[in-house]
């Protein structure tokens, strides 16, 4: 077996030194009644070549680019990933390294994480970003937890009903066994959050609003912040598509205390939903209450610049049950991917890319409108928007699946009141011809 270097001679010699006769003897401390009664029943070990065949067959039983044209967003986005980024991730000094607890031999990871933290802070317009959470959903749950830690006596959190429903579900799960209450804010006819109810909520610790929201609509974070701060509560600005900030006002410029969300768009493959990248950034007053790892810049004994994990006393391995979070493993390699991607696209590139995303989505909107399809909400959007297809389009939708086109996400499972509504996403990966073809198919 190619992962076992030991030869029979090695094993015999080592057993002799340890002072036992066989490999089984090494387990003498395991009581008889704790042993497996039956041997492991697993499929026969596959050769590399059989494994390749098996996995290839499974992977072909999937709908992916370029064979399929998938117009889905809703928290996972199809973007081009430069070959240079994929190549750099194969540097095994990055991928096979552990958490950088021994900084002297982890300066590569540490400097890259410091760069990631910096670029994220700049992208979101916030003071400090951490070195990643699991994904956008758990990042939001952690943001609420942090808010309760800051606003000690408060018991309620408010979450917009147009925050991604999967995220809302995760938040509810995290807080189910606690004494904290979750209040949902309804949405208005124009597809944005109804902030009017915030004033009446008692013991409010924080309000979370997503922008662009689940319907793709751009929210007024400034007003949301004002409403939250009037109640001496925190504003959490969350997002699922950070590429938007190449074009749109970033959250930081609109006053939130915490900005968090999903970073998969930044060079990370969709990979059926994971691994993703939980991005998390705060105003500098809250640094010591942040969850997650933080990399700081410092000097070594000779005065040389270097980087090290810092403020570790917030974390579970030191603070245990009083830690800011239980997180240990994070999404380190995904954060590295995002840093490489942001470095590749650069300042000019991200503006162009964001603009292209929006313009392609706007083009599709225009063509659909011309063909008589109704837009559900008039509020400006980024690269996702909701259409109201004519009744009876369900059959057409199924037909299009057969033609290898996934024409958006039906919203009924998430918003039962929105029958015949579909969330369409257009990124830079769709050509004008693709979009024209989609319109033609839908309206035929």
């Amino acid at each position, binding site marked *: 077996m190619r992962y076992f270097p030991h030869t029979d001679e090695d094993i015999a010699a080592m057993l002799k030194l340890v002072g036992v006769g066989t490999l089984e003897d090494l387990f003498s401390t395991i009581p008889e009644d704790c042993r497996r009664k039956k041997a492991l029943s697993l499929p026969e070990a596959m050769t590399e070549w059989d494994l390749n065949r098996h996995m290839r067959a499974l992977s072909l039983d999937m709908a992916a680019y370029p064979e399929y044209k998938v117009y889905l967003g809703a928290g996972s986005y199809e973007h081009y990933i430069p070959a240079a980024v994929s190549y750099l991730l194969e540097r095994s000094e990055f991928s096979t390294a552990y958490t950088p607890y021994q900084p002297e031999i982890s300066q590569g990871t540490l400097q890259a994480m410091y760069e990631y933290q910096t670029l994220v802070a700049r992208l979101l317009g916030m003071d400090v970003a951490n070195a990643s959470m699991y994904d956008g959903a758990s990042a939001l749950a952690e943001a609420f937890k942090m808010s309760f830690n800051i606003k000690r006596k408060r018991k309620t959190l408010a979450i917009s009903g147009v925050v991604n429903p999967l995220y809302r579900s995760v938040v509810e799960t995290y807080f189910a066994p606690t004494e904290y209450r979750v209040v949902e804010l309804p949405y208005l006819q124009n597809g944005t959050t109804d902030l009017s109810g915030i004033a009446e909520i008692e013991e409010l610790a924080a309000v979370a609003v997503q922008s662009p929201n689940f319907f793709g609509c751009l929210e007024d974070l400034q007003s949301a912040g004002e409403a939250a701060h009037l109640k001496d509560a925190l504003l959490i600005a969350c997002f699922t598509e950070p590429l938007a900030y190449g074009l749109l006002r970033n959250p930081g410029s609109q006053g939130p205390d915490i900005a968090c969300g999903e970073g998969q768009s930044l060079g990370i493959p969709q990979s059926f939903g994971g691994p993703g990248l939980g991005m998390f950034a705060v105003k500098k007053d809250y640094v010591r209450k942040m969850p997650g790892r933080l990399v700081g810049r410092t000097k070594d004994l000779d005065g040389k610049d270097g980087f090290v994990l810092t403020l570790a*006393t917030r974390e579970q391995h030191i*603070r245990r049950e009083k830690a800011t979070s239980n997180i240990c493993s994070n999404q380190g390699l995904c954060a590295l991917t995002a840093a490489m991607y942001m470095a590749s696209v650069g300042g000019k590139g991200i503006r162009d890319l964001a603009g292209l995303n929006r313009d392609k989505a706007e083009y599709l909107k225009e063509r659909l409108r011309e063909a008589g399809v109704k837009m559900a909400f008039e509020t400006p959007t980024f690269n996702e928007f909701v259409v109201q297809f004519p009744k009876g389009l369900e059959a057409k939708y199924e037909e299009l699946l057969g033609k290898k086109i996934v024409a958006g996400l039906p919203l009924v499972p998430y918003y039962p009141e929105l029958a015949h509504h579909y969330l369409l996403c257009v990124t830079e990966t769709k050509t004008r011809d693709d979009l024209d073809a989609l319109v033609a198919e839908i309206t035929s």
Partner: protein
Amino acid sequence: MKEITELSFPEDVRYTKDHEWGKSVDGKVKVGISDYAQDQLGEIVFVELPEVGAAFEKGDEFGTLESVKAVSELYMPVGGEVVGVNSQLEDSPELVNSDPYDGGWIIEVAAGDASEMDGLMDKSTYVEELKGIKP
């Protein structure tokens, strides 16, 4: 870390089993941590201070001290209202290490019950306690 004989324990303060000290000054009680505690914790990087005006009972947690590798809770040696905090510790937390009984004082309390100070240990009792602590 130092031997007990290398550390300093003034006579004019009283000590708690959690290694805080209390000293009556102008009718108020000044609070800090002992030389032993600062030596055990290592270089202090951050002090979390309570708000002036906050009220605690004897034994309540009123703040924390962070070093690079550890966090230590601070407990009230006597009950009362916090009437002063050493704001110098925000920029210079290392004062707790270098000058634990004077410049490194942490809070000042208007004690609710003056007799609580009598329940604290004097220097010799405290040093005996320290000698009994396993390494």
